[in-house]
């Protein structure tokens, strides 16, 4: 309960702080618009040469694009800023400030930052998803919608776990910056359903970097493709990953001796 209150408080302060810089909103809007245009142009280009890609029609891939933008927005609003701050704090010896507070350290390091203008991507992703859905004739059932919400949430949790594991590694390895760049590149694989990738790559972006769970599985739910086995697998994998992450974070913390503070 206390954890929730702390999260809310950090969120409020973070938002107030960001709201001071209003021009950033316009810049963000412009950059999101460009990224979205490119995404749609690429889809138009692909579907000018074919009617379906591995069984997915154009409106269905518009949905995938929407979900990828949406998930990317969530990552850049909340997950990535906190994790890069954690990596920075470890390197600069400032993590001690968080560790000495009387609250669970994992909660604290996960909620300290919020980049509220990135919410633009959350909104534009939702709009793109909506447009894509409106062009699919079959419509979305209540059960599909429920599965979609669940899969999206599970995907978010898994991406968070992935990032925290990476950030925890920075207790041992100093230069984790390149990994941040690596993630941005690999996350682009989510633009396309993972089914098109060759096996090694498909497994990598499913279990190593859980992009398939975060984007493709929700997209399968919303296009009535999802079978219950996949959803069960998502629940199971999320649970395992979360438990492992919690253990790994504590293991890392036990070995952490602090730098100069």
């Amino acid at each position, binding site marked *: 309960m206390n954890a929730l209150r702390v999260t809310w408080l950090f969120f409020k302060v973070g938002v107030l702080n960001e709201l001071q810089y209003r021009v950033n909103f316009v*810049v963000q809007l412009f950059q999101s618009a460009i990224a979205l245009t490119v995404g749609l*142009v690429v889809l138009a280009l692909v579907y000018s*040469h074919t009617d379906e*890609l591995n069984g997915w029609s154009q409106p269905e891939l518009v949905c995938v694009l929407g979900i990828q933008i949406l998930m990317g927005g969530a990552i850049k609003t909340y997950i990535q800023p906190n994790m890069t701050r954690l990596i920075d704090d470890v390197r600069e010896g400032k993590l001690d400030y968080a560790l000495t507070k009387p609250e669970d350290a994992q909660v604290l390091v996960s909620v300290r930052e919020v980049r509220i203008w990135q919410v633009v991507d959350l909104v534009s992703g939702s709009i793109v998803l909506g447009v894509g859905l409106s062009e699919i004739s079959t419509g979305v059932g209540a059960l599909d919608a429920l599965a979609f919400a669940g899969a999206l949430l599970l995907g978010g949790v898994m991406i968070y776990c992935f990032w925290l594991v990476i950030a925890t590694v920075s207790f041992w390895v100093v230069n984790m910056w390149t990994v941040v760049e*690596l993630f941005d590149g*690999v996350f682009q694989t989510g633009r*396309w359903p993972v089914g098109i990738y060759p096996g*090694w790559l498909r497994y990598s972006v499913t279990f190593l970097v859980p992009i398939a769970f975060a984007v493709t599985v929700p997209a399968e739910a919303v296009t009535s493709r999802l079978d219950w086995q996949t959803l069960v697998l998502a629940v199971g994998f999320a649970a395992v990953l979360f438990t492992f992450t919690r253990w790994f974070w504590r293991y890392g913390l036990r070995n952490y001796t602090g730098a100069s503070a």
Partner: protein
Amino acid sequence: MTSQPVATELPAKLRESGRLRSLAVFYLATMRIAVQEQFQYRAANYFYMLGMVAEPVIYLVVWTTIAEQQGGSVQGLTAGYFAAYYIVWTLVRNMNIVFGAPFWEFRIREGELNKDLLRPVLPLHWDIAYFAGWKFVVILFWIPLAVGLSLVFDPTLDPRLLEVAVFAVAIWGAYLVRTMLQESLGMLCFWTTRGAAIFDLYMTTELLLSGRLVPLPLMPDWVENIARFLPFQYAFFFPIESLVGDLSNAELARGLLAQVLWILIGLAIFRFAWKRAIKRYSAVGG
């Protein structure tokens, strides 16, 4: 009266040759420093390259999937062609990473430029020389990556000897074309602190019109026609196609000529902008 510097008494021709010689020495020394410096950061260089590989691999998989769905090819381009195109793409992309426009913002904001201006050599020369030296390290690191990708994706690559030779020149042409475009664009930083939006627009235009996204023949005809009159494809599509495609000797020669032309145009724009920029400049920090 007698205290004139010796240099001015030398014939103009001799002075000019001395200037060129010292510039050559400067280039060689800077390139050697770049090689030695960058060779220390092997892991960082590799991670960066790996992150970059995600992009072409995605394009490659998408277009291979389409080709296979349609019985082997899209507009006559086979899966093997796509594999070759995007594997060569990785080298060309590495070659055209240059001293980019955003670095100019950094250079001005952090006051780095003050130091550079005190040197008797234009900063441009350092940019070209340092990144050119770095390329030797990059090419060396790229080879195992290319071997790995070739084993996975099975490219069709059967170039003539002349095509290999043209490619070896064209990747350096691409490097210089993109250097001059980016340096010219960087001059905007002397007038605005919000260049990021413009650079984004540039990158997007380049992505669509250069062959970075797809081989240009896959684009609609009107896009291909626009791209013909723009420099972007000479830093991407032309070098790749010179090795992977079946260009005639005349087309190869025309491509190289176009590269030279765009380098000169870029240089002219840069000189024009630099003269005005440096008059405007007032130092920040230091």
